[in-house]
């Protein structure tokens, strides 16, 4: 929604003076003026408790601004046509003669190369958000306005190529013009403002652009799981009334929107989103439907199925338990407002969305919203393993429950677990940072990192990063744990100079998919052995959700965990179970 300039200024003025700063660069070739104000206001909203400080560069020197940018958490790069050739702006008079168009194209090509190089170089140190020209081209071509000229098509083609190439650079995010169009339906160019102050945007467009840019600066917590209803949601029709063959999801039966919904859910599942079904239905009918009809969403995409006539909130509780994630990480989609209200009452943190079965336009907009809620920067190997490993985990828990509790250790030793540990800090592994930023339960302190902050810390010589991957006879879990900390020199151990080092662990997370395998003990055992430290210090902080971490620390320390609690090698060896998995180290 478009923000007013007055509103933006009031938001900025309301930030406490002592709030920790959030330095962000706004790099453009025009006067940043109100775009800077709107960007700052949007950042204030996205990062409450921080004081965004937007640094700008020199007028007319976008490439130079990119080369000089430093000491910021992120930078946004706003490219306009005049940055590619000043003759494409309104403030310079180089001529619009037909004979000059070829020369302008040549200059645009050279500028694109320079911008691409400068952006790629800056992205090595700073996460960048890049917006390509949003203003209309001036009436430079000799064709009537309705006709796209070869010149303008060539220009846009060149820009499209650069944006596609930059989108492949790690740490660069490109603003999607389609998203910007949805946010900014008004006129973009303000000729008066451009001529009088060098700021080319209308206030409404500047507000929308700032919103689109800031959305990409924040590492948003993504939703992890989607729980869907079946009747009049995944397909058209009530299974119990029309039977398996009476349900539809196609054009012929005017139910194509359900096919599109299935297609979206299948796409989300293959990209790592957890999909479950909560349906008041006859289980045998549902099984028959999935077995005999060719749904686009496959039965293997779904885990678990909760199909019965009980309350939906109970189904959601069991699904959350099976997934081992919190209600805040989940979206429920259902065509029944009553069922959604019942779920919401029992699980207030759940996002409940109505499937508008009678309104394909609204259903399409729901799909766009779902894509946004579950959207991610890239798909990792772990994404393709997630659903399968949860299913395998349920199998493991089932098998484990069958053995006596005192034999649980034996059981774990017989699942052929293999832990693979890597202490490589470079190149930057985005999966490790993703784990740190989205894991809640086995999390030392709940601390989150911006990309540049993480990168800078890992560049410190004494910083240790350990990433753990795991597999057992139930299948691979992929990368499931990250431990990072600082190796402290010998003199600072207990204030003496015993020559022994300690590792101060500042962050430690483990995916809930890896619980119940005692992997955390094997990680600590490896740290003591591999790093040759005598003591671990934990930057522990209790959070609302890190009970599993608190329980683990209490178990090894034999006392409730406290901030900066320490664990000696001797103490650990006395209190830890026997080694459970084979451990392998990779370079």
């Amino acid at each position: 929604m478009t923000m007013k300039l007055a509103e933006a200024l009031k938001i900025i003025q309301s930030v406490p003076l002592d709030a920790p700063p959030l330095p962000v660069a706004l790099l453009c070739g025009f006067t940043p003026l109100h775009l800077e104000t709107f960007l700052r206001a949007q950042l204030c909203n996205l990062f409450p408790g921080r004081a965004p400080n937007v640094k700008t560069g020199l007028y007319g020197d976008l490439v130079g601004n990119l080369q000089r940018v430093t000491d910021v958490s992120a930078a946004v790069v706003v490219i306009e046509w005049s940055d590619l050739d000043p003759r494409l702006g309104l403030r310079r008079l180089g001529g619009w003669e037909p004979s000059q168009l070829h020369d302008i194209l040549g200059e645009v090509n050279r500028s694109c190369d320079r911008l691409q190089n400068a952006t790629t170089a800056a992205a090595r140190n700073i996460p960048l958000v890049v917006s390509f020209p949003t203003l209309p081209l001036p009436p430079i071509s000799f064709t009537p306005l309705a006709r796209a000229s070869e010149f303008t098509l060539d220009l846009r083609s060149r820009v499209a190529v650069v944006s596609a190439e930059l989108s492949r650079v790690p740490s660069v995010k490109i603003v999607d013009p389609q998203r910007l169009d949805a946010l900014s339906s008004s006129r973009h160019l303000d000729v008066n403002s451009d001529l009088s102050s060098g700021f080319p945007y209308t206030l409404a467009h500047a507000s929308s652009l700032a919103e689109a840019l800031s959305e990409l600066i924040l590492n948003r917590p993504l939703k992890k799981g989607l729980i869907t209803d079946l009747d009049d949601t995944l397909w058209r029709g009530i299974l119990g009334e029309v039977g398996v063959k009476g349900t539809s999801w196609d054009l012929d039966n005017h139910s194509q929107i359900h096919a599109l919904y299935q297609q979206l859910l299948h796409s989300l599942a293959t990209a790592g989103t957890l999909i479950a079904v909560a349906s008041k239905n006859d289980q045998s009918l549902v099984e028959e439907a999935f077995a005999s009809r060719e749904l686009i969403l496959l039965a293997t995409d779904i885990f678990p199925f909760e199909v019965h006539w009980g309350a939906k909130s109970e189904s959601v509780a069991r699904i959350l338990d099976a997934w081992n994630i919190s209600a805040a990480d989940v979206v429920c989609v259902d065509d029944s407002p009553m069922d959604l209200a019942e779920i919401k009452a029992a699980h207030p943190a759940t996002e409940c969305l109505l499937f508008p079965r009678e309104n394909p336009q609204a259903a399409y907009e729901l799909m766009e919203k779902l894509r946004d809620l579950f959207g991610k920067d890239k798909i990792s190997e772990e994404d393709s393993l997630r659903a399968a490993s949860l299913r395998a985990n349920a199998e493991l828990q089932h098998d484990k429950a069958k053995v006596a509790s005192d034999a649980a250790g034996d059981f774990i030793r017989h699942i052929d677990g293999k832990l693979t540990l890597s202490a490589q800090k470079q190149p930057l592994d985005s999966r490790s940072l993703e784990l740190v930023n989205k894991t809640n339960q086995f999390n030392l302190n709940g601390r989150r990192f911006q990309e540049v902050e993480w990168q800078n810390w890992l560049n410190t010589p004494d910083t240790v990063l350990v990433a753990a991957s795991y597999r057992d006879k139930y299948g691979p879990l992929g990368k499931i744990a990250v431990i990072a900390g600082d190796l402290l020199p010998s003199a600072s151990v207990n204030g003496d100079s015993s020559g022994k080092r300690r590792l101060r662990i500042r962050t430690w997370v483990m995916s809930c998919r890896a619980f119940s395998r005692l992997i955390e003990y094997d990680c600590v055992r490896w740290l003591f052995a591999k790093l040759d430290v005598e003591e671990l210090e934990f930057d522990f902080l209790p959070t609302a959700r890190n009970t599993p971490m608190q329980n683990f620390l209490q178990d090894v320390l034999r006392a409730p965990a406290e901030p900066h609690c320490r664990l000696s090698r001797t103490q650990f060896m006395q209190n830890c179970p026997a080694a459970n998995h084979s451990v392998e180290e990779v370079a």
Partner: protein
Amino acid sequence: MAEIETRLTNCFATAFPELKAQEIPSVSAGSLASWDSLAGITLISLIEEEFGISISPDDVPDLISFELIADYLRRTQSEGAK
């Protein structure tokens, strides 16, 4: 017309949050150090947004005090009403 002054006062309060309410009616570019060219552009944009008008670049150099701006707004509003 009092409504114009109230709305204009709000614009000044947003552009110059350090001003006390009673100081605003007498303020001018010459008397306020923070009223530089950038703040002047922001103030004009706030006024355009608040009153839904577009101020001609030719008029902007004359709008250098609360009173002058209030006169300008009264004039343009009464011309618009004719």
